[in-house]
């Protein structure tokens, strides 16, 4: 075992200030008592990943120990969140997307497993390891997406397939890796594969039949984007007819990307679903002048019809692969003396956005990582301001591009504690150089691409857990990690924050100070989403999947050549010491107090 590098701890805010601030904030739906279940990856519709369970506390978490574990039999990036419904836990694996049901009354016992047998070819299509981000439960059904672009609903009790709907075509590069969000009788799902000329969409399926209810494209004419008379974007640059066509060269929108592979949240009061779209593709940036709407955009839609109510383009004309798909955490905050319904979005481009979720107005956009590619967001126009000197161009050397293509933060979801008023953001600290050209080929077609090389940003650490105070728009504390923190975080009523590291540590830290409280070494690096639940015995459990992989960990899970600086689009270079820190794996861990 390699000795863990001691986490650096920087306490920026005083405990008193935090306590005072916490009193003025609440989570959108914190009101009902916690039912102890975990029925969707983000726990609640507001995407807080906060559980009020408080048997495990900052004081006793040091005694937390392994209750049971299970070998999932798939050694690829395990990004999914386990679900807990009643006395059953559901876990979906990376490709081939096996769904396990565990009997929590007999720990470690499999009730049934369901195998969707997705098409093998899908593995060759997925960009960044063959991951899934999990399932969702509602009304007796466990619903998830398979890599070969199907959505499947399985009877939660019997494990029998209820319906399976094909949504995309893998031969054209379409895969599905995101976790559905179920709102009422609608299952909301989106596609992956923007770099292959896939046109992005969000689709609603009927929960009980699997039939398509509506589809909202991310590019193209208003009727395809489901933009109608009720569409009221806040900023001028998002207003106008058919911007999904006119902000592109003719017809480029037809294959323009803007896939929907990230997180969704829902506000029942406003009846709005929130999500973001990915980067534009497959055109090179100079061949697609214009804003390229609606890529890298946040949408608010009506779940019943898909109708767009507002949109805000986070990164117009994206140059860096800054997908806009990260989570939107729905909170009610007191800002400048006024209670605001906001959506908080730590974006790939390096800024934490606080948006008015009724209107799409940006209330603040503050860097939470090291940013050189842009100068900030103009709060009058709403536009992100790019730095000309950092624009990549084929054949031109550009150094110090920060954040690198995976962004200051990728898909890995944050959690929010209403007790501390802090958002716990797992993220990375990576920059890249674009240094010349190298030959490559796809489908027999040779070309010359930019040779990019990623490396640690200022400070030399590649990962961070940042506790962010969205009211004061500043970090309360940060913990640095050797590797990108590619796991989700979990915040609990016991003031404990859980997260995992790529070098095999599952960690608990104090929610108020970041003080390390407990760690457990797992079989492989952790890039999954920790959860907590109340077991049938009334005790609080904490669960997480271990299994390194994903874009960050493909050097291990896919066995990339560490000598090849350009592997995984240059990410492997930044991760070349990862194989020494973790083997691959695929294991479920469940912890409890003695």
């Amino acid at each position, binding site marked *: 075992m390699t000795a863990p590098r001691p986490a650096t701890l920087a306490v920026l805010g005083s405990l008193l200030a935090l306590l005072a601030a916490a009193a003025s904030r609440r989570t959108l739906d914190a009101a009902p008592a916690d039912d102890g279940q975990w029925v969707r990856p983000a726990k609640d519709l507001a995407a807080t990943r906060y559980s009020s369970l408080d048997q495990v506390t900052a004081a006793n978490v040091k005694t937390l120990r392994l209750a049971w574990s299970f070998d999932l039999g798939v050694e690829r990036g395990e990004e999914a969140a386990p679900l807990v419904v009643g006395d059953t836990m559901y876990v979906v694996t990376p490709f081939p997307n096996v769904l396990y049901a565990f009997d929590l009354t007999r720990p470690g016992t499999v009730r049934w497993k369901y195998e969707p047998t997705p098409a093998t070819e899908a593995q060759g299509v*997925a960009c960044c390891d063959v991951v899934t981000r999990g399932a969702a439960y509602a009304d007796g059904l466990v619903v998830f997406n398979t890599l070969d672009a199907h959505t499947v609903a399985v009877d939660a009790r019997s494990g029998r397939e209820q319906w399976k709907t094909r949504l995309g075509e893998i031969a054209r590069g379409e895969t599905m890796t995101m976790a559905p969000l179920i709102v009422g009788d609608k299952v909301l799902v989106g596609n992956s594969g923007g770099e292959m000329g896939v046109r992005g969409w969000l689709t609603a399926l009927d929960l009980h039949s699997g039939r398509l209810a509506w589809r909202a494209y991310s590019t193209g004419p208003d009727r395809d984007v489901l933009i109608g008379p009720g569409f009221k974007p806040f900023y001028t640059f998002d207003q106008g007819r058919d911007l999904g066509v006119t902000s592109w060269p003719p017809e480029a929108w037809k294959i323009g990307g803007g896939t929907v592979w990230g997180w969704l949240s829902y506000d029942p009061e406003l009846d709005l679903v929130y999500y973001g779209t990915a980067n534009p593709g497959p055109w090179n940036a100079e061949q697609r*002048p214009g804003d390229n709407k609606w890529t890298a955009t946040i949408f608010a839609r009506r779940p019943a019809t898909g109708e767009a109510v507002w949109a805000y383009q986070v990164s117009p004309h994206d140059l860096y692969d800054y997908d806009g798909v990260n989570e939107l955490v729905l909170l009610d905050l007191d800002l400048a003396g006024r209670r605001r319904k906001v959506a908080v979005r730590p974006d790939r481009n390096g800024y934490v956005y606080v948006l008015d979720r009724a209107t799409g107005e940006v209330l603040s956009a503050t860097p939470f990582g090291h940013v050189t590619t842009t100068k900030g967001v103009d709060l009058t126009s709403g536009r992100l301001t790019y730095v000309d000197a950092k624009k990549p161009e084929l054949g031109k050397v550009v150094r110090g591009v920060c954040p690198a293509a995976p962004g200051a933060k990728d898909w890995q979801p944050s959690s929010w504690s209403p007790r501390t008023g802090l958002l716990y953001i797992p993220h990375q600290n990576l920059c890249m150089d674009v240094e010349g050209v190298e030959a490559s*080929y796809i*489908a027999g077609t040779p070309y010359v691409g930019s040779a990019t090389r990623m490396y640690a940003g200022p400070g030399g650490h590649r990962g961070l857990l940042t506790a962010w105070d969205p009211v004061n728009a500043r970090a309360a504390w940060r913990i640095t990690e050797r590797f990108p923190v590619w796991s989700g975080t979990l915040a609990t009523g016991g003031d404990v924050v859980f997260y995992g590291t790529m070098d095999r540590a599952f960690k608990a830290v104090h929610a108020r100070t970041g003080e390390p409280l407990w760690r457990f070494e797992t079989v492989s690096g952790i890039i999954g989403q920790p959860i907590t639940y109340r077991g049938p015995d009334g005790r609080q459990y904490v669960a997480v999947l271990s299994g390194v992989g994903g874009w960050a960990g493909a050097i291990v899970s896919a066995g990339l050549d560490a000598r090849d600086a350009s592997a995984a689009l240059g990410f492997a270079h930044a991760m070349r010491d990862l194989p020494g820190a973790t083997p691959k794996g695929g294991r479920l861990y469940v912890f409890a107090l003695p």
Partner: protein
Amino acid sequence: MSSPSPEARLLVLALIALLLAGPAAATPGELRVCADPDNLPFSNARGEGFENRVAEVLARELGLALRYTWWAQRRGFVRQTLGTGTCDVLLGVPEGFERARLTRPYYASTYVFAWRRGDGPAVRSLDDPALRRVRVGVQLIGNDGTNTPPAHALARRGIVDNVRGYTVYGSSTTAEPPGRILTALAAGEIDVALVWGPLAGYFAPRQAVAIELAPVTPALDPPGLRFVFAIAAGVRKDDTALGERLDAALAARRAEIDAILDAYGVPRARAADVR
């Protein structure tokens, strides 16, 4: 149930050991080629591509049985094939590719202009002003914002609004196979297409109308762009022995390989001209 006999246990252990040994160990007597199962004219699972034919020639020359590992030639192709050790040889690798040890090139080809005979503008140069007026098709790759060299070359010249993109992704069973750009040209959706030579040479004669092809000029468009690529075979970087055997086989069967490339209409270029 009785416990298994010691012999049975040994057998099981031996089987486990075999399984653990995995696919990495090359089987003597086999030429293990990594190839795309559905990517004509290069290769397919029925052995109908010119790379299939070249592989057969090489296997015969080396006295080895030919065996394929099929994997779509997309992102991850090299790591899933050569990288996992399930196969040992790539065909169709462009010179300058850094993730494999390359043999000497066995041909060079070029991106070409394609137009309808007697109908389209006979464009031969990227600097032809006609390219600003007509509808131009390019192939798109989109890997990290990178595309085929003609797509970048046109953008550099400010030729954007009249350019249509055709992704190279697809399969023979979908509506968008790799030859879609030439179908679009034949159908009059575009007036000029910029296509990688072997694709153009194969798909152009299969269209309902006559298509003319001409190499893209200038062959170099600095910084960073070129249109001629020498094509080699690739092996794992440390597999010197196999690399050398393939070099010898490619040299010995030069004429036969040239004849295969001719039969598939692969436009040839002289790579030496642009190095």
